[in-house]
Every structure is written in structure tokens, then in C-alpha cells.
């Protein structure tokens, strides 16, 4: 650690760099500290009886419940069910969206043909079509997968198209001049060029997918984190509800972090500018 500081200071010959290093550390600590402080205040308030523990049980109680559910294996069953639906929904919604979106960016005709449909259906709240989806797909897995898929479809299709349209025209001229086929243009220009925006779409899509899977599981499922929370309401186990919320929140953070890592790996040319 000390060596790192001395080399960086030696390079720029500015003592400022070591000062900035500690500033970074302070910022990181603040990031971590704010939720911890919030939880502490919550815990204290709950113990002193300043808040109604029927609605806001102490964090320590929620944590206890988490351990109980984890040990009994219940939490994992629901967690796995939700993850599976997310995975398939992501696959069935995301991949067609990616192909369609990039193709729409490449082909004016296809764009003219499909864009009105997408613009018209995009503003419909996805939660509002749940009854219809349940009617069509029944109470089985497919209705849940469809809901996730539809949530992920829109952000990815729209971002993929926008990503291709943002590519400088000169790059398409280059690929044409060098004799690239349609598929080669797709693979070497459109897809990598649109990738930064596509990943933004994936990020948004996963967030929406988490919202929709919880909702779909509340209404028509016998497993999953959404079902677990709904079931907890019925048996008045408020702590279990909070466990569900906590797990979903952690999932959201984990996915977001994973995409940040993925970006570093897939679009290295966008970093270090």
C-alpha cells in the first residue's frame, strides 16, 4: 500500500495524489456508512418503541428471520424459483429484442414498419396486462416468464436501435468499402458500436424484470420471492416480508454490479477515456 502511494507521488511529484487517495477512501466509507447508520437508527427506534414494530420490526429481528428461512431451506426454494423465471424471461425477451433492435437500427424499412408498434405498446403499464397474460398463459411458469420477458424486451429493443443509429456513418462506409457482408456489418459494426447503449438497456431491463416478477408471483404463483412476501402477509409474518424485500434489493444491487463488471470486459474501449 505504502509503496503504491510513493510511486504515484513520485511520478507526478505532487503530494496531492496521496491526499486524493485518502479522499477516495473516505468517500467509499461514506457510501457504506449511510445505510449502516440508517439501520442503527431504525434498530434503536424499534427497541425504544418509538416506531410501531408491527409494521417496522427491528433490523435484528428481520435478520433472525432471514437466518431461520435460510436454514429451513425455504428461502432458497423461493429464491431459485424467482431466479429461474428471471433467467428464462431474460433469454426469451432479451435476445429477440437485441436482434430486432439492432436490425431496426440497420434497416430503415424495418424501422418504419416496427417502430410505430413499439411506440404504441411501450407506454402501456406492463403490470396492467398481467390479468390478460394469466388468462392466455394460465397459472404455470410461462405466464411469469412472459411477464419478465416483456419487461426486458422494451428497454433492450429501444436502446439497441438507438445505439446503432448513434454509430458514425463513416464506420458503415468503411465496412462497405472493405467488402463486409450484411452479417459482417451486423457483427463487426452495428453490434459492437451499439453495445454501450445495449448494456444500458440490459441494466434498465433487469430492474423492470425484478419489479414484474415480484408482481406476477404475488398474483399467481406457489413459489418465488413475490409469493413468499404475499404468503407472509396472509400469515402476518411481517419479518418475512422484509426478508423478501431485502433479498430483492440485494439482487438488484448484485445485477447492477455484474453489469458494471461486464461493461469493463465487453466495452473496454469506452473506459479510461
Amino acid at each position, binding site marked *: 500500500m505504502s509503496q503504491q502511494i510513493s510511486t504515484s507521488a513520485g511520478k507526478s511529484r505532487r503530494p496531492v495524489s496521496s491526499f486524493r487517495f485518502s479522499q477516495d477512501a473516505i468517500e467509499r466509507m461514506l457510501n457504506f456508512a449511510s445505510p449502516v447508520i440508517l439501520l442503527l437508527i431504525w434498530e434503536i427506534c424499534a427497541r425504544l418503541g418509538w416506531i410501531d414494530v408491527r409494521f417496522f420490526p427491528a433490523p435484528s429481528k428481520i435478520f433472525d428471520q432471514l437466518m431461520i428461512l435460510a436454514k429451513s431451506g425455504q428461502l432458497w426454494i423461493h429464491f431459485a424459483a424467482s431466479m429461474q423465471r428471471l433467467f428464462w424471461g431474460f433469454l426469451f425477451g432479451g435476445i429477440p429484442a437485441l436482434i430486432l433492435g439492432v436490425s431496426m437500427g440497420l434497416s430503415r424499412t424495418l424501422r418504419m414498419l416496427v417502430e410505430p408498434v413499439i411506440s404504441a405498446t411501450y407506454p402501456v403499464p406492463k403490470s396492467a396486462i398481467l390479468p390478460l397474460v394469466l388468462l392466455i398463459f394460465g397459472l404455470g411458469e410461462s405466464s411469469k416468464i412472459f411477464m419478465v420477458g416483456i419487461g426486458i424486451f422494451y428497454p433492450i429493443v429501444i436502446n439497441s436501435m438507438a445505439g446503432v443509429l448513434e454509430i*458514425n456513418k463513416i*464506420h458503415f462506409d*468503411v*465496412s462497405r468499402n*472493405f*467488402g463486409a*457482408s450484411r452479417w459482417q456489418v451486423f457483427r*463487426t*459494426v452495428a453490434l459492437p458500436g451499439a453495445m454501450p447503449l445495449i448494456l444500458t438497456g440490459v441494466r434498465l431491463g433487469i430492474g423492470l424484470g425484478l419489479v414484474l416478477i415480484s408482481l406476477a408471483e404475488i398474483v399467481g404463483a406457489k413459489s418465488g420471492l413475490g409469493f413468499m412476501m404475499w404468503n407472509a402477509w396472509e400469515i402476518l409474518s411481517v419479518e418475512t416480508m422484509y426478508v423478501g424485500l431485502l433479498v430483492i434489493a440485494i439482487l438488484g444491487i448484485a445485477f447492477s454490479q455484474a453489469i458494471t463488471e461486464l461493461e469493463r470486459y465487453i466495452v473496454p*474501449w469506452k473506459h479510461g477515456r
Partner: protein
Amino acid sequence: MAQAPAAAPLALNEEAGLSMSDTMTLAAADTKIRLRGLSKTFYTKSGAFTALEPMNLDIPTGCFFMIVGPSGCGKTTLLRILAGLEKQTDGTLEIAAPPKDCPSNSMVFQGDSLFPWMTVFENAAYGLRMRNRPAGEIKDTVGHYLQRTGLSRFHNSYPHQLSGGMRQRVSIARAFANDPDILLMDEPFSALDEQNKILLQEELLRIWEETRKTVMFITHSVDEAVTLGDRIMIMTAHPGRSKLIVDVPFERPRKVLELRARPEYGELVYSIWGHLRDEVQRARAQDEGQAK
């Protein structure tokens, strides 16, 4: 031009993206490019815009052909038609069939044309990869041209990590590595400072001496035209047409700075400037007229 064989041009036409009736294969080996009455008009909402007036031109094989003209005279349009990126409105374009396994042309574009998502090596290898050449050949050929342009150390860098001059060198390496029959260069050095420009001109001449391919090179610098070219076409202000074609008598191989020190060099630059000045002034008058 009508006696061109009917079957041969197919491959070339596909390459250039032009229809058969407008591009034909030259039979004669000593002429690489032949234009007859080639013109281009753009039709926009505000009306028709003539970029190129009918032009006749013959470019011999192995010629380093320079085009100078005021900005907006249709130089780039002409090059884009040759590259197959644009189609002429009228007239014929004949390009000699390239040797087997050799693409008809490769272009060095004006400005930043490297793919930001590819490394220097991947950028330079682009043409060969699109033609599905074996990996070993790609490695050797690209390695050779990266070495010739002094970029070997940077083969894993991304374009944003390079300076403007280095990026332009990658762009030149990309065109040369594709081993095309004709090289098209659209003001490749215009964005560079004077020192880099001279170094790159020398580099270009050195690499070109290895193969002596036919080159079409657009520039707005008379100095550059006289330094590099065998023949210079001066174009008129808009609408563009050929005003005058001048032969450059200097022997090859050339050394840029030594050439520029010679009195004949100055005389030639001066006389070409005399022809070009009127056109530049006309182009400026047109711009001012539009501004009003």
C-alpha cells in the same frame, strides 16, 4: 469501352456495388480507371445539386494520381463513386479487373474512420478478415504494415489511446494491408500538423514504392500534390469538373524535404497555384453568395 466482355465484370460490379450497365471491365492493361461522361447530381428537398459535371479521365496503371480543388468541388464525391459508396447519375466508369483474390480498391477516409471498439491490430486487419483470409496470412501482412508505419508496439491499443497522427497511420496500414488493386485516399493528412504531415508523406511514399499500386489521392494542398503525385488534376469550383491535368516530372524514389528545396519544385507549385487561385476565389464568392 463497349467491347468489354460481358461475363468478367460481374465480380467487380458486386465489389463496387454498381450495376452492370454502368461499370465495365477495361481490357487494356495500361489503363486502370477510365471515366466517360461521368457526372453526379444530388436530388434534395431544396432541388437538384450538381456535384460533378460530365468528366472524362484515364488513369494509367501504377499512377500516383492527385486531385486538387477548392472545397465543395466534388472531389470526395468522385472518390466515393470510385469506391462504390455512391453511384454516378450518368456516364460510365470502367475499372480494370483486379488480379485474383485482390480487392478492387480500399479507401483511406478523411477524418477519424477507425472503429473505436477494435484494437489497432483488429482495425488494420479489417479488410483481410472480411475476406476470410487465413489467420496466419492476416498476422504476417498486418504485422508487416504495422511495422512499416511504426505501430507495432501499439497493436493492442485502442484508437482513443493514440494521437491523431497515429490513428491516421493505422488507417493507412488498414488500406495497404488489404492489398487492393487501387488505393483511394481522401485528404488523409489534412487534420495533421505540418511536421507530422511531412513524416507521414515520406512514410507513404516509402510503403508505396514497395508495390507501386495505382493511387487516387485527394488533397487541398498544392505542396502535397506536387510532392507525392505523378499527375495532378486541378478541379474547378462548384460544379466540379476537370480544369487542367499537369504531369509532375520529378524522378522516384523521392525525398520530401530534398524535393521541396529544388527550384523546379517551387516553380511547379507556383504555376499550379496560378490555376487554382481563380477557382478558390470563385468558390469563396459562391459561399459568400449563399451566406447572403
